[in-house]
Structures are given as structure tokens and as C-alpha cells.
């Protein structure tokens, strides 16, 4: 519709000799064009994605790591939806697993693929909780380290039609995920005494703080909250806090506040509406991600994404492989489907992204097809079929 309107306007401009009409139209363009790209305005956003756009290469190659647990089933569903929607994306599938090492491709192979394609869709790789010698770092961590995926974003947003205790939530959690408690530096100095090192560096703290504020700017957010425990870890978390407040001065239009992690958790369950964008170090981010995902419906419905400066990897917001459901066809594919929509947005396929996202939201809103975690009895494949049928 908008396309026709546009051609219409073009013709009008061509035919009319009245100076005023032209300048009016240009004013309209000038006034509206900037906001369209920043996705500030719903109607303009719709107008701008009414036509398919792509990139020079035509089709896109995207790395797909199905992961463990229900990952492979869900990814198959996603591919089915992509096919039905005619998304110009090809997947380069790489299976990697820590619990079945024999069938797994090598770490370098996977990292190479991510680096080559620059965009990836990733399931969750299960990490054993016991230590049987060898490398302390988990596979997930090593992939993140190799790719330098320093920022994790979880956009917690209530799904219309799926009622939980808190509705209409809409906030973003940004987590540093290369250092902190996840540095995998642990040792037993004398028998019975174990030291784990938590590393905080200025470089990485500055980087994540800037990322958080840039994200807030890009998505027209109003406030950034830095979450920390600087009252106890005065130096480590203190440095993080300092970096956040330094960077905040570069963004005078965005409000900056700080909150201690324990208080933050309490506020999240009692009054989560006060939050907008939150930025935090690694472990706190992990906990808050999961907590917040729980607020809007659990691991099955919240998408997440990880960024380095060159690579973007899209996955679930709360990372659980859901191994107990393997083969039972009961897992909820919503999180991964929404993550794949975010991925399409990222590679400028806004049109297809909207297509799939609308279909998913429509299915959820109708409330007829719900998986177990959403209080229904439908299977994974039922859900996928419902989404495919809702595509226009």
C-alpha cells in the first residue's frame, strides 16, 4: 500500500508545477525520514519496511549452531518457518557439543564460520558442572572469547496475550560477558582452600558501558541503570561503576542511575516497570537475565543477542538447553523464533523480520496454540505449523 502511495506521490511531484506542493512534500520527507530509520515511530517504521530490501550479495549466509538439548528440534522449526516465509538466508550448520565430543566439529571450525558470516544463530551448548581435568573454560565461553562477543543483550518484553504476573514489561538487560567471574581462573592454593579470581578491567568496562549507552541511543531509550556491588567489592565493581559514570557524561540526553545488585533483584520482582536499560558485569547479568526472563514467561519466550564489533550472534535470552525435553516435542520455540527475527533485522531484512514476528505474536495472542510452559498442551511442531499458517 505504502509503495503505491509513494509512486503516487512521485507522479504527483512530476506532474505538478505548483512550487508549494513540492516543497510540502519535501518537508514531509525531511520531517519524517530520520525517525523512520531510528524506529521511533510505529507508523513510519511500517511505511519503511513495506518494501523488501536486501544487500548486494542477494542471499545471506548465516552460521547455525543448533546446540544441545532441544536446540536441534527448534532450529529445524526455525528453518521451516524461514522457508515458508521465503527468507533469503542460507544456513551453514555447525554442530558443536561438549557432552558428545565425538560428533562435534572443532572450536576453530565454528569460530571461523562465525567470523566469515559475521552473523549467527545459536542454540545452547550444555556445560557439565563437574570438572574432570583439562580446560576450565566452557565451550560457550571459549566461543565468546574467540569471537570477542563482549556484550549480551536481552530485551525483556511481555508478549501480548500471554498473561504473567507482570504484564507490559519492556526493558533491556546488557551484560558484559568476557571477564569478571567467568575468567576461569581458579586454583586450590592449599588443600581445602580454593581461590577464584574475578577480573574487572577498565578497557572492557568502558566498552560495555559505551555499548549500553549506544544501544540506548539507537533504540530511543531514556535511562541507563548500572547494576553493581561496589559497596562490597569497592575496587573491582567500583571500577566498573566509575567507567559507567564516565561514559554517561557523553550522553547528556540519557538519564543515568546506579543500583546495587541485591536491591536490583528485589526491585525487579516487586516493581520491574522502573527499569529501562540496565548494564552490569558478567555474573550479575547472568542472574538478572534469568530472573527477568522468568518475569515474562521463562526461558522459552525471551530472545537474546551477543555482539562483538564485527560479529552478532543471536540466541535465547536465558540459556538453558532443556535436555529433559529432548525428543518429546514439547519445547517452546518462541525465544529462538524471536531471536531469528532480531537476526533478520540486523542484516537489514526488516521486511521478513516483521513478517515472522507478526506471525509469532499473532499465534501467541490468539492463545489457541500454547506449549506446556505457557500453560497449554500443544507440541513444538503444532506451534511451528501455527506460525507458518499465520504467515500472510
Amino acid at each position: 500500500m505504502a509503495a503505491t502511495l509513494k509512486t503516487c506521490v512521485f507522479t504527483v511531484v512530476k506532474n505538478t508545477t505548483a512550487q508549494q506542493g513540492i516543497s510540502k512534500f519535501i518537508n514531509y520527507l525531511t520531517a519524517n525520514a530520520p525517525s523512520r530509520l531510528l524506529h521511533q515511530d510505529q507508523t513510519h517504521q511500517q511505511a519503511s519496511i513495506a518494501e523488501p530490501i536486501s544487500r548486494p550479495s542477494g542471499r545471506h549466509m548465516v552460521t547455525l549452531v543448533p546446540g544441545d538439548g532441544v536446540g536441534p528440534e527448534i532450529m529445524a522449526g526455525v528453518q521451516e518457518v524461514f522457508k515458508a516465509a521465503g527468507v533469503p538466508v542460507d544456513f551453514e550448520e555447525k554442530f558443536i557439543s561438549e557432552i558428545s565430543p565425538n560428533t562435534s566439529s572443532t572450536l576453530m571450525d565454528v569460530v571461523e564460520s562465525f567470523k566469515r558470516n559475521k552473523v549467527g544463530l545459536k542454540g545452547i551448548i550444555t556445560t557439565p558442572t563437574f570438572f574432570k581435568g583439562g580446560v576450565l573454560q566452557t565451550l560457550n565461553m571459549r566461543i565468546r572469547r574467540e569471537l570477542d562477543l563482549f556484550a549480551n543483550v536481552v530485551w525483556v518484553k511481555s508478549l501480548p496475550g500471554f498473561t504473567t504476573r507482570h504484564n507490559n514489561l519492556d526493558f533491556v538487560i546488557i551484560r558484559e560477558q568476557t571477564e569478571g567471574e567467568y575468567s576461569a581462573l581458579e586454583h586450590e592454593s592449599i588443600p581445602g582452600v580454593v581461590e577464584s579470581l574475578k577480573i574487572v578491567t577498565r578497557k572492557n568496562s568502558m566498552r560495555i558501558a559505551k555499548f549500553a549507552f549506544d544501544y540506548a541511543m539507537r533504540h530511543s531509550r531514556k535511562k541507563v541503570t548500572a547494576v553493581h556491588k561496589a559497596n562490597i567489592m569497592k575496587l573491582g565493581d567500583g571500577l566498573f561503576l566509575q567507567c559507567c559514570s564516565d561514559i554517561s557524561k557523553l550522553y547528556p540526553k540519557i538519564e543515568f542511575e546506579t543500583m546495587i545488585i541485591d536491591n536490583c533483584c528485589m526491585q525487579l520482582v516487586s516493581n520491574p516497570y522502573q527499569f529501562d536499560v540496565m548494564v552490569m558485569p558478567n555474573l550479575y547479568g547472568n542472574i538478572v537475565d534469568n530472573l527477568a526472563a522468568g518475569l515474562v514467561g521463562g526461558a522459552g519466550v525471551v530472545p537474546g543477542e551477543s555482539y562483538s564489533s564485527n560479529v552478532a550472534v543471536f540466541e535465547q535470552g536465558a540459556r538453558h538447553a532443556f535436555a529433559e525435553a529432548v525428543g518429546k516435542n514439547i519445547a517452546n520455540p518462541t525465544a529462538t523464533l524471536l531471536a531469528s527475527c532480531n537476526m533478520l533485522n540486523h542484516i537489514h531484512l526488516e521486511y521478513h523480520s516483521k513478517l515472522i514476528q507478526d506471525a509469532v505474536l499473532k499465534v501467541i495472542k490468539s492463545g489457541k496454540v500454547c506449549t506446556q510452559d505457557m500453560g497449554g498442551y500443544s507440541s513444538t511442531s503444532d506451534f511451528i505449523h501455527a506460525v507458518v499458517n499465520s504467515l500472510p
Partner: protein
Amino acid sequence: MAANLRIFIGQNLARRTNVLFQNSALNETKCLAVYQQSRKNSFAAQFDLVKGEALAKYGGRHTVTLMTGDGVGPELLSHVQEIFRYAGAPIDFEVVEINASKNTPIDMEHALLAVKRNGVALKGNIETKFDDPSFKSMNLALRTSLELFASIVKCKSIPGIAVRHNDVDCVLIRENTEGEYRQLEHEIVPGVVESMKIITAEKCKKIAKFAFDYAVQHGRKKVTAIHKANIMKLGDGLFLEVCRDIAKGYPDIEFNDLIIDNASMQMVSRPSQFDVLCMPNLYGNILSNIAAGLIGGAGVTAGINIGDRYAVFESGTRNSGRSMKGKNIANPTGILFASCEMLDYLGHHEHAKLIRESVFTVISDKQIRTPDIGGTATTLDFVKAIIDDVKPKTLAWSVMFQI
């Protein structure tokens, strides 16, 4: 004309400055105090990210500050956004509205911060009201506070545009922060105004080195230093001396120097002799306008301002084109080339090439041109032609997926 100007300065300036400053002395000092205070407290003044860190680039996508400017700036930049969208360039724009009517220190500060946090900006020109002595050029303020020491204007003939010379291919590199542009002017006794031109060895070294490095990186053969050392023996003499010194470090690049008046004459009579030109501020300003005029005027040249940390891209001749505002006749070629340079700077060579080629196709092959380069097309016709040209190159799959 010159006599008029002198009278204007001699009488009007003296009267107007006195009236202006005295009558609103209180107001003025207050404003100044607030401004200086804000400069002192301003984070932008002290804070600089190191190069590379400054770019807001995540997952391969950049955020770029878009400063709208005056005149035709806003409309042309909206066309650039539209074309970027169709070309699939991985760029997000952060739009900062800044123009001559929005010129408070706070607006300026916000614009500066926006460039500092993104590292790169695309900019329409901001008008400078030259009849109001209290109005400081915001373009200049931007350049000095971001330390954008080098300005580059590439002038290359575009095939198909009817101009007198078809063999222009030169790069004009201009010192961007000092010289005549320091805004140090005062009236010592009524009727006598002194303007100071500042030349420092440090900045000369920087710009000369930049020019030679540029020549090496881009496979150019010759660097010409432009000066007026026969009259300004000390000031321009220093510039020339430094250039000669630096030239010794680049034995593969030919070096010569030319006096500005002669250079202007040579530029219009035999422009093909020039390759890379290295100039102080004002001469650069004049000569790049001449060179731009040779290849088709203000609408077709791109300007790049580069510093150690930041880069700002704009149209080459820095005219705001107020007279063309809202008439749908401005030429978007210059700002499009500038945005291609920006894509190149950010490493998206593929997209830069795509857009640049489309512009050439539209101008040279399809012969859709705006009035300033001898055509009859409107701005929108031109933009639409480019989008139509870009689309098939990017939409290989649209045939099999039709809605």
C-alpha cells in the same frame, strides 16, 4: 565591491559591534560566562576516546551521527538515508538537528558529544551569519574542537557533464584548523582592524605528512604545496619550509610548490597538471572551490574532514544552498559521494562502490541530471533513478519472492 566591503567593515562593523556589545553588554557577558563555564565543565572538552574505540560499531553495524544543517542539508540527507536503506548499507543514523537557528552552547555541546561517541559524522553545512560579528561559525567550532586538521576534497571529472575540462583528477588537502581561520580579529583604533593569521610548525608538519601519506596510500605521483611565501615570507615561508622538509622523506613522490595566484590561474587553464595539493587554510578554501567549479560545481564534490580520532563528511564546497531550499532542484551527488567516502572510511567498500557506480550510471549513462549540471531533472527524479539502479543490484531474490 571591495571598496564597499571596506566601508562596510570600517563603519558598520565599528558601529554595530559597539551598539551590539554595549547595549546588550550585560546579556552578552552573561552568555559568555555561561558558555565558558559550560566549556570548563563540559565533558566533551576533556573527553576523547582513542581511535578505533570511538567507532560505535557492534555486530558489523555502525552508528553514524547525522547533522542536518541549513538550506538543502536536511532534504539531501534524508535522500542519503533512503538510498542507504535500499543499498543495505549497515549504517544506523543518529540524527542531530543542528542549524543556524539552533546555535546555543548546549546545542553545540550535544552535537559535539554525538560525534565524539560515534566517531563519524555526515553533515549538512551550517550557515554562518557573516553580518553578525557575535555569531561564531559553528562549522569552524566543530572542526577545531574535534581537531579535524585535514580537509580533503577530491575533484575528478564526471563523464557526461559538459564542462570545459574533462581531465581533472586532483586531490586538494587543506589545513583545517589554523591560518586565517583562528578568528582572532580586533579593532585597535576605530577604523583599523587586525586579523591574525597563525601558522605553526606543528600543524604544518602534520598536514604535510598527511598529504604525502595520502599520496603514497592512493598511488598518487606528485604533491604540490600552495603558498604565498613571496609576500608572507615568515608565515607561509614556514609552511613551505616544512613541506620541503617532509618531502625529503618521500623520494618516490614528486614535490613542487606554486604561489596561490599562479595556482589559481593554472587550475582554470591547465588543471590536469595537478595531482595532490597541500595548502594552508584559506588558499585551500579558495582553490577547492575553483576545482569543484571545474568539474560541475558545489553539487558534485565531496568533502572529508579527518582528524586523529574523528571524521566528518560533508559536501565539498561547504555551501548550504539556502536559495535552493524546498525547490526540489538541489544536486545530491556531492553529499552522496561524501557518504560513499564515509562508507569507505568505515570499511564498507562494497556498499560504497555500489552507490558510487549507481550515481555515475545515472549521471553519465541515463543522463538524469539536476539543473546545476545542465539537466532538467528534479532532486527526487535523480534520487529515484539511483534507487531504481541500486535495487536490481541488491534485489536478486525479489523475483522469486513476490508479494
